[in-house]
């Protein structure tokens, strides 16, 4: 019988799972992706598409640097996706703003950016602008904006096209993506390898498994001996009718899609698995957008939705190898868009153990061991 390269199975066909799959395929592995049900909580289908570094990891240097690595890798990654899939993800990385209407929040954020800069060293690039300077530079910003931070490294993509580009790239590289394949339980096998029991009764056997199922990881992590507990965090979003004009800025809460619509978001709430939007929050988002840029006042909102972020206990990514069951990996993070270029490249080296770089020790789940035991 012909010796075949062992197959790696990725559980989860969202941005994280597909990125990891792509990285492994590019490293020459055979990869199968099992994607869940249509009505699963799919952060990849509801997100904002930001490629964002401002403030990230201000109190955790490894995350600040990992994020900065990802920002730097995006232009080449977008190009690679275009070549593999023929899809333009509409990367626009010409910098982004964080707007403030509360002076104390503005000061607090400046302190975080200062702290973040100490981790990033010469790679730190940001500026703080007070309201009047901002309005001089960018006519149209509302009078109640007291200031903004700006980072030239930040940007955004069209998130749905990005998801499609990833899926097409994985398929173009020979990866198998099976939709509607919900994994119910994972049974580590005595001689190594794993039996994945699907909800429809099928069983998939695999030598190695990478759990990238977002909120779906919550019920499967324990089967592999992982202790990380991910939690949902509700974000609500609006999108307006398409505009012929381009907004003069990108911010973490207001972004104009390449097709013209303005997406408004950024709320955070603990609502369990309830991802419904609410009129109260929709009104708050609209008010925020009009405060920042009053010309949006008569622009119609055409859709609103809620989506669930995938949050680890401390909000940072988790990259963990199971000690109890060698060959099992857990990859979970909130920033599946921003970090994608790394998930699709150097993370494969970490999974395959082919290089001491990257050192992802800091993102191991052992950091939760104490709080978990407590």
């Amino acid at each position, binding site marked *: 019988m012909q010796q075949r390269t062992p197959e790696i199975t990725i559980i989860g066909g969202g941005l994280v799972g597909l990125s990891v799959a792509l990285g492994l395929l590019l490293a020459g592995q055979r990869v199968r992706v099992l994607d869940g049900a249509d009505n699963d909580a799919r952060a990849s289908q509801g997100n904002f598409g930001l490629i964002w570094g401002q403030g990230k990891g201000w109190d955790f240097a490894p995350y600040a640097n990992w994020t900065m690595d990802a920002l730097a890798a995006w232009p080449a990654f977008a190009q690679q996706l275009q070549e593999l899939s023929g899809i333009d993800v509409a990367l626009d990385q010409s910098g982004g703003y964080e707007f403030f209407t509360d002076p104390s929040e503005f000061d607090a954020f400046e302190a975080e950016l200062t702290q973040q800069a100490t981790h990033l060293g010469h790679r730190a690039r940001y500026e703080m602008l007070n309201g009047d300077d901002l309005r001089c530079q960018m006519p149209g910003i509302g009078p109640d904006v007291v200031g903004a931070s700006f980072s030239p490294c930040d940007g955004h993509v069209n998130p749905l096209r990005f998801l499609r580009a990833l899926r097409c790239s994985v398929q173009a590289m020979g990866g198998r993506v099976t939709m509607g394949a919900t994994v119910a339980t994972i049974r580590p096998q005595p001689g190594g390898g794993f039996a994945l029991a699907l909800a429809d009764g099928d069983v998939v056997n695999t030598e190695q498994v990478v759990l990238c199922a977002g909120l779906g990881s919550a019920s499967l992590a324990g089967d592999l001996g992982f202790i990380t507990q991910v939690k949902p965090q509700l974000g609500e979003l609006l999108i307006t*009718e*398409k*505009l*012929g*004009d381009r907004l003069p800025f990108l911010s973490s809460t207001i972004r104009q899609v390449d097709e013209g619509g303005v997406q408004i978001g950024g709320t955070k709430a603990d609502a369990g698995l309830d991802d419904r939007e609410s009129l109260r929050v929709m009104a708050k988002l609209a008010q925020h957008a009009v405060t920042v840029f009053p*010309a949006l006042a*008569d*622009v*119609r909102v055409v859709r609103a939705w809620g989506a669930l972020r995938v949050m680890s206990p401390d909000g940072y990514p988790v990259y963990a190898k199971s000690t109890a069951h060698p060959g099992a990996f857990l990859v979970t993070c909130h920033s599946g868009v921003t970090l994608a270029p790394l998930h699709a490249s150097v993370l494969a080296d970490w999974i395959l153990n082919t290089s001491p770089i990257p050192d992802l020790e800091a993102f191991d789940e052992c950091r939760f061991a104490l709080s978990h035991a407590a």
Partner: protein
Amino acid sequence: MNVASRFRTLPETGESVQFTLDGVPATAPAGVTVAAALVAHTGAWTRQTAQGAPRTAYCMMGVCFDCLVEVDGTPNTQACMTLLGDGMTVRRQTGLRNLNGGHDG
């Protein structure tokens, strides 16, 4: 070009209202929607998509958004959901709307 419309309004009630389409005066029976007035007027396109494809009212019930026009300065108004008022200023919607209610043309 002013093509003769294939659409007819309901039998005249006698009352009529005046409006302008792209600045040109026009008349329609009282009580009809802007969309009904427009398709009866010429039957020609009343909006162009962002890619320049010509469109006009289709579903007449608020679903397809192909009837978007500018009404009294408000862009992207669904003509089929708007009753025609006397003296209304209606403009065909070409391409995407702009900020400040602005509109090319």
